[in-house]
């Protein structure tokens, strides 16, 4: 770990008691080594519903590794990650119900149409019944591409399809790796709107990005690796 700062940018306007009911996410003493290099050590944070954690750092500083540890995909060398008091690497069922993850790869199948991709995503996750697949595609700016195979979509449009997947899942914690990547200004605005709405409904977000996430009225903690 080169440098790590914890900066509380904005004051939480949500009462913590209300946020607590939406779940809380903690990391205690996380350490991870790759190729004999310690990427980070002694990493601690506590994140409540309605709050956001932004992870910054140079390329290769371990942002993606940290996100994969927080997801439960990778085990840390030291430390633990808890969701509502349960270790996510030992008792993950409840955590996975509450989790949505967008990694570097979009998790989009290029042989399937945009709509078919969302149908599979809906079957795999806890679906948000209030948002239909078509409505999510429309909001993501893909209304005209419902029946277009994802292979014919641009990289930005595939990112939007991954965002549409977030819209149809009822997850309380989002872990997003460079969500603004490949997106145009409208797409970036959409991500910020989605982050704001997620925080407003008591959802927690961990996001690795270099972009300023200027979301008003919600607490953002920044960690620099």
């Amino acid at each position, binding site marked *: 770990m080169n440098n790590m700062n914890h900066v509380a940018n904005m004051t939480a306007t949500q009462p913590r008691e209300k946020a607590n009911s939406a779940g809380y996410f903690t990391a205690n003493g996380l350490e991870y080594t790759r190729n004999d290099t310690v990427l980070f050590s002694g990493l601690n944070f506590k994140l409540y519903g309605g709050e956001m954690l932004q992870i910054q750092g140079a390329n290769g500083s371990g942002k993606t590794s940290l996100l994969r540890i927080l*997801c*439960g*995909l*990778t*085990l840390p060398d030291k430390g633990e990650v808890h969701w509502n008091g349960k270790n996510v690497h030992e008792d993950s*069922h409840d955590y*996975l*119900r509450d*989790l949505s*993850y967008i*990694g*570097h*790869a*979009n*998790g*989009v*199948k*290029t*042989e*399937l149409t945009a709509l*078919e991709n969302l*149908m*599979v*995503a809906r*079957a*795999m*996750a*806890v679906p948000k019944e209030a948002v239909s697949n078509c409505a999510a595609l429309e909001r993501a700016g893909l209304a005209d591409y419902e029946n277009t*195979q994802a292979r014919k979509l641009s990289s930005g449009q595939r990112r939007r399809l991954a965002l549409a997947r977030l819209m149809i899942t009822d997850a309380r914690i989002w872990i997003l790796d460079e969500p603004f990547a490949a997106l145009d200004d409208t797409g970036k605005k959409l991500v910020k709107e989605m982050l704001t709405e997620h925080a407003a409904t008591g959802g927690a977000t961990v996001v690795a990005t270099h972009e300023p996430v200027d979301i008003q009225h919600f607490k953002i903690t920044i960690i620099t690796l």
Partner: protein
Amino acid sequence: MNTQTTNHVFLAILRRDLMIGLRQRSELVNPLVFFFIIVTLFALALGPYEETLRQSAPAVIWVAALLASTLSLDTMFHSDLDDGCLEQFLLSHHSLTIIVMAKITAHWLLTSAPLIVAALFLGLMVYLPQTAMLPLLATLLLGTPVLSLVGAVLVALTVGLRGSGVLLTLLILPLYIPVLIFSVATVDNAAKGLAITGELYFLGAILVLAATLAPLATTSSLRIRLG
């Protein structure tokens, strides 16, 4: 997790993989063409002697089916790893074992089921006796799912490794030996008019064992590889 949800997830993944497979026609056709070429090469190498071909037919068809099945294995998890879908499967709250079982079923339907139909036609080409046709069908129905099941474990163990194709072939072919021995013995015995019940029971037992353990082993292998 209730049965209805489990069925829903199984069918969603099965439908997904079948749609993907049917849209990638080359991956569907290549094992079939490979199967046809190997059987033809054997027929050309053994010469146009009916008796020689008839005696070799069960072995020729089964070795060709094994190789063709191995050719298509590598695709089972590879593209899902590349496009991030495998991560999404691991992060689903649904059982990864159910997802893996759906993927193995789809792989069998897309690659082995066409081979079974083709094998019956190729059996005629190599003078397989009529009395051995049904036993050949039975061995293929019992044996090819084992190839997909056992193959899935090793594909999961080697997914994402450089040069995994060759490594996979080296690892998988020795594991197919029991299926090969009992299948060829069944068809051989049937062609000679001998009893085949014992061999079929063994094949059935191998299938039950593979169907019980392979999805769990595949799940663990995927978690190890992606962790």
